[in-house]
């Protein structure tokens, strides 16, 4: 029972981190209908920038902030210079562009920071919590708290504010949104700012959680998040979050606890295939 609970808590943390990366992908797909593979590279950059700022300043808060600002700028740059000029072509063209950007960023990280695994010696300033005989470490607490905070802010922005309504309108039809006085290109950029800043948070969290930062750390999330937005329903942010949490829990419980002899990373794809066979619109998608 003890082990089960511990694995469940780890699973929720894993799922939270998946959710932070996947929702950016869902946001971008929802508004531009592009598979933003390079999103995972933004997450890698987030981890590196967060680590660098943390080492220079000694402040983890600055590390998070620096990573978010840098990644938001990077996300907007990718949108302006890669996706926007390619929007008039069939969707595989921006997809190829996205893969190219992802590889380029990975190589840049390797060139700048070296092909090593760096450690992220930061402690998250949250108290560990004891529940009966199970201890929730301060790192896990931080992952939960930060994810909850990010999701709450995102929920507020997208459902309660004028900019959120403009985002929903733009994702439905850019031409009409323009006719309603919405500068839809700016809304697209705002979407990239949001998604990329959140990916930066995820990158820093993963760096601390595993105490590892390395150039190819975005490779596995890159394809796992693709599977996850299919499971959640293309372009559905709540669907992406739910699918991510389920996957995180399923991975740790089925592989770590029940010891099913499967590679951990295969689960996302089994889920994707199952969804495509029985519910092709995804958990919360619309047909």
């Amino acid at each position: 029972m003890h082990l089960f609970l511990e694995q469940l808590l780890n699973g929720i943390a894993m799922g939270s981190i998946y959710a932070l990366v996947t929702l950016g992908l869902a946001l971008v797909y929802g508004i531009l209908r592009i598979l933003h593979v390079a999103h995972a590279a933004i997450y890698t950059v987030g981890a590196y920038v967060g680590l660098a700022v943390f080492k220079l300043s000694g402040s983890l808060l600055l590390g998070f902030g620096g990573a978010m600002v840098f990644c938001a700028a990077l996300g907007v740059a990718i949108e302006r210079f890669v996706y926007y000029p390619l929007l008039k072509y069939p969707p595989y063209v921006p997809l190829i562009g996205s893969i190219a950007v992802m590889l380029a960023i990975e190589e840049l990280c390797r060139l700048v920071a070296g092909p090593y695994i760096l450690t992220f010696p930061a402690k998250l300033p949250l108290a560990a919590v004891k529940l009966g005989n199970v201890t929730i470490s301060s790192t896990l607490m931080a992952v939960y708290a930060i994810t909850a905070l990010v999701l709450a802010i995102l929920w507020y922005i997208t459902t309660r504010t004028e900019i959120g309504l403009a985002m929903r309108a733009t994702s439905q039809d850019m031409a009409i949104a323009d006719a309603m006085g919405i500068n839809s290109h700016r809304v697209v950029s705002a979407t990239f700012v949001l998604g990329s800043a959140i990916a930066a948070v995820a990158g820093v969290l993963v760096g601390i959680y595993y105490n590892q930062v390395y150039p190819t750390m975005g490779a596995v999330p890159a394809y796992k998040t693709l599977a996850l937005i299919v499971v959640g329903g293309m372009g559905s942010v709540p669907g992406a979050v739910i699918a991510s949490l389920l996957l995180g829990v399923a991975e740790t419980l089925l592989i770590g606890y029940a010891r099913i002899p499967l590679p951990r990373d295969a689960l996302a794809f089994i889920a994707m295939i199952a969804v495509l066979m029985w519910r092709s619109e995804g958990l919360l998608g619309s047909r």
Partner: protein
Amino acid sequence: MKQPLLKVEGLRKHFGGLKAVDGVDFQVDRGEILGILGPNGAGKTVCFNMISGIYKPTGGRIFFDRARTDGLPPFRLAAMGLGRTFQIVKPFTSLTVLENVLVARGIAHYGRFRRIWGPWRSKDQVAAAMGILEQVGLAELAGRKAGLLPLGNLRRLEIARAMVVGRKLILLDESFSGLRHGEVSRLEDLIRTIRQMGITVLLIEHNLRVSMKLCDRIVVLDHGRKLAEGTAEQIQSNQQVIEAYLGRRRRKNAAGG
């Protein structure tokens, strides 16, 4: 003296070798209903798309509310008080009818960074949006998803959004097409109400009877050029128009009573 709200001079739009609009001039005075008439492919919708900023003109000039506006993006024109509908209705299908109007209500905020973080479902906003829906006769359907509405109601929804955005000028692109007879006369009344509110109306219409009855003046386009301009009577008796466009139809109308 009447003052033009919208004025186009030598407006041209070429798509490769196709001269969709080729040197059109006309002006819309404040408070009038001006109809643009013409057969398919005459360049009416292309004109609309240039006036509302979707296309950049190949040549010519557009003045809206005394400012030169050709080449400005659509959201800037919307912010200046120009609202429009589309020939093929395009509601935000997954939003409710009320939310569709609220998107348009946001026009007062979209340009200002600090105000876009405010709530959009405030009491005043909803009340104002409901008022517009009341006017177009969609108030009971406010909570319905826009994608589920039949065509007649969708046209009204588009006009409702255009009324919010178009404080000064509304462009209606074939809002009557596909409507049943009763709906047509209700829409005519609505357009007259809009004019009484002090909003100028520019409309494209296929239906001759409707445009003759509704419009103060009519501009006839053919093959991208202006064929004639004038009141309904002047247009009806214009020899060129009769030959190019009205000829057969007028005889048919006369025969049919």
